[in-house]
């Protein structure tokens, strides 16, 4: 059986946190540049110019793209023939988050308890960790830094089967219109359809990991992604102060659901759709 030391996991997670905070994915950068070319609002163009320049400075100087370096979401795919030695998996991941956020001069934004005593944990732990057991003996790690300006505007609607495609469109648009200028558009919109309430929400998070220029493998979902993007770009929200570039992409992930249900979750991400992946 293949073995891997927990320290290796810690080092990998630390690097992924820093890289995600500094380097915007190329596809998002390219989408911003395309948005700038087609943007109709003069103020929108000024905003997009600043955002594009910001991405270039962050990358060139190893600086956080945004001061909200997020809550750290970690997706783990653990091969069932892999044996982790020298510590617990989740401890290793959280140690990596603490190391990455400290060494990388990232902001620590996590409080240990949400309501009565909101005390900052001081190292951005704990992360939100999702672990899946998969075939093989590898460990795949994807780190996503989720800012809360956009997270606060995300939402979920429990539709019923009769609502159908039009119902899904209406639900997504309602959430986007309610979010309006606040989640730092241009947004990347992750949509999860199906499953249970919690599964739909998770699917909407996973949807944000797919590059913005790759459409869903199923043609009917790919078409829905394009239709939703077109509708969102007609809202006028634009790049924060009005315009035609409200969103860069809509990514949908779907899953099996119950005969009585049609859950639709929308995770709104700002233009900083920050995520990095590695395989150990």
């Amino acid at each position: 059986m293949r073995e891997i030391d927990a320290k290796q996991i810690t080092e990998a997670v630390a690097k992924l946190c820093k890289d995600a905070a500094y380097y915007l994915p190329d596809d998002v950068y390219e989408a911003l540049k395309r948005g700038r070319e087609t943007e109709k609002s003069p103020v929108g163009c000024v905003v997009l110019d600043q955002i594009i320049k910001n991405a270039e400075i962050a990358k060139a100087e190893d600086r956080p793209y945004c001061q909200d370096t997020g809550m750290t979401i970690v997706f783990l795919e653990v091969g069932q023939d892999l044996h982790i030695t020298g510590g617990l998996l989740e401890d290793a991941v959280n140690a990596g988050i603490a190391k990455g956020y400290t060494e990388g001069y990232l902001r620590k934004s996590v409080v240990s308890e949400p309501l009565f005593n909101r005390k900052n944990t001081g190292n951005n732990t704990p992360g939100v960790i999702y672990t899946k057991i998969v075939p093989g003996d590898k460990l795949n790690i994807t780190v996503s830094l989720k800012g809360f300006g956009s997270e606060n505007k995300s939402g979920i609607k429990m539709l019923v089967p009769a609502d159908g495609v039009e119902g899904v469109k209406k639900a997504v648009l309602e959430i986007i219109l309610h979010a309006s200028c606040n989640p730092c558009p241009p947004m990347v919109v992750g949509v999860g359809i199906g499953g249970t309430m919690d599964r739909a929400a998770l699917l909407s998070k996973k949807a944000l990991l797919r590059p913005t220029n790759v459409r869903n493998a199923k043609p009917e979902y790919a078409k829905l992604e394009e239709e939703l993007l077109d509708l969102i770009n007609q809202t006028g929200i634009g790049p924060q102060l009005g315009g035609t570039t409200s969103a860069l992409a809509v990514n949908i992930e779907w899953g099996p659901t119950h005969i009585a249900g049609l859950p639709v979750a929308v995770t709104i991400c700002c233009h900083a759709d920050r995520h990095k992946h590695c395989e150990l």
Partner: protein
Amino acid sequence: MAETIRIETPFTEEKSRKLHVGDSVLITGTIISARDAAHKRMCEALARGEKLPVDWTDQMVYYLGPTPAKPGDPIGSCGPTTSGRMDAYTPTMLAQGIKGMIGKGSRAPEVIEAMKKYGVTYFAAVGGAAALIAKSVKKYEVLAYPDLGPEAVARLTVVDFPAIVVIDCEGNNFYEIGQKPYRTLKL
């Protein structure tokens, strides 16, 4: 867009009343950062009848929690946070003499009413342009609540800090004006 207007602090009501929605500005001088936890603390102190640790007369508040500075830098990345979360505290804070607010996103009607009453201007900085905005910050000094870490109240010395007037003293709101011409969606 109109020509860029240069503003120097202190930011008086007279200066504030000259600005109009949509104006693009460059701010030079000092601005004071405060966000969620600091607002809560300050408003609780005022409710107890205590004096605030900062004199807010003719000041600009910046809704900010920066990343830590790298060695040799005055500040880390420092873009605006969502202003709406401060709305519950804002009318109380404006009564303390604040004349400018810098953040991002829409404001509650009661905030806009208080802005009209006190002659306050609300500016937007570009959300997520944090590494770029840091270039205009020359100095960062914590003034109060250091235990809040990135949420501490701090004085930022800025040169040509870029912002746009999004709600002026008369309550004109660019978040409404700016979207309308581009809304082709039939609802």
